[in-house]
């Protein structure tokens, strides 16, 4: 959980219909963004509800870098005002994430970046983005051998030799 620091109200002035939020990344970059862009994030929405209850607005500290945060803001800006079923807290979640062409291009990044984005999206509770990243990661490992999957996932073989040869723990399909 990030700690919440109080900031002077004048640094986050309300403007027009959408108010501004101050987000602070782990590398201490201050990013001002319109509140309704970030409303897709359940985490941010809950923070804002908290602000309304106490009528005090704060900066929101986030445990990831500005590089990743900017990427998430880009995603949220693209879908600003769009209804995505997965982000509707009242809708039943779809079985699998739908394929969205824009997301595929947006997530055409290296493996580490993809993992950082999914982690940030999970933290911010943006279900649609978690789903799209999960789909992209699954695309990287689909059809690969055990060794290739270990390489991509950064996983070490921790089976004992007996387990490796027992059919219950090792099924090669």
């Amino acid at each position: 959980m990030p700690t919440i620091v109080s900031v002077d109200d004048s640094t986050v002035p309300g403007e027009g219909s959408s108010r501004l939020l101050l987000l602070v990344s782990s590398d201490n970059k201050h990013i001002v963004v319109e509140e309704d862009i970030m409303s897709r994030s359940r985490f941010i929405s809950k923070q804002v509800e908290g602000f309304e209850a106490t009528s005090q607005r704060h900066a929101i500290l986030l445990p990831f870098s500005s590089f990743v945060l900017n990427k998430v803001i880009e995603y949220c800006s693209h879908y600003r005002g769009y209804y995505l079923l997965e982000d509707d807290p009242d809708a039943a979640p779809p079985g699998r994430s739908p394929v969205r062409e824009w997301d595929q291009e947006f997530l055409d990044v290296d493996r580490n970046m993809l993992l950082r984005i999914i982690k940030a999206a999970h933290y911010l509770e943006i279900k649609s983005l978690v789903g799209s990243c999960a789909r992209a990661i699954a695309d990287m490992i689909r059809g690969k051998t055990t060794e290739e999957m270990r390489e991509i996932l950064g996983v070490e073989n921790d089976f004992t030799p007996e387990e490796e040869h027992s059919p219950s723990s090792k099924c090669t399909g």
Partner: protein
Amino acid sequence: MAAYLIILRFPEDILLEILTNLDSRSLLICRTTCRRLNRIVSDSVLLQYRIELAACGMVDGRQTLDVAEKLRRLRLYNAAWNEVEWTGHTALPHLANYQPPSMASAGALVFHSATTSHNRSLTALQHVSSKLRCIHEQHIVFPVDVGFNSLIDPSQDLLAYAPRPDP
């Protein structure tokens, strides 16, 4: 490699979200990579259902049952096939005047009546109920003009109906 993110340290719901996008074969290979992924796949009812469904060559029928119930029925179904024991008997007295079934397809038996009246014979389609596969008993009868051949394939919703060639 310090910058190499270790996916296993991620929360389990992220890993599940990724695995949900995989086919049964990739899931089985994923189980062989390490203990944690092996456990996550085998503990997930949804993923286990997908694997076991594919293993017996079936596809999901989109019944409005929850996945745990689907998996339970799938296992009962597999067990029934492994033991090849009768799980139920259905008497079909209304088919007494029909010839032995001429064909079976997609869970339906096709019967033709032994007698004709008003130049018509009857064809009956009998779906035998199956609790495990969520099939209800259904009985459909329709007349066929004498001199016509009919052929039914319920799996295609197809009825072929053609005049018999003159001898």
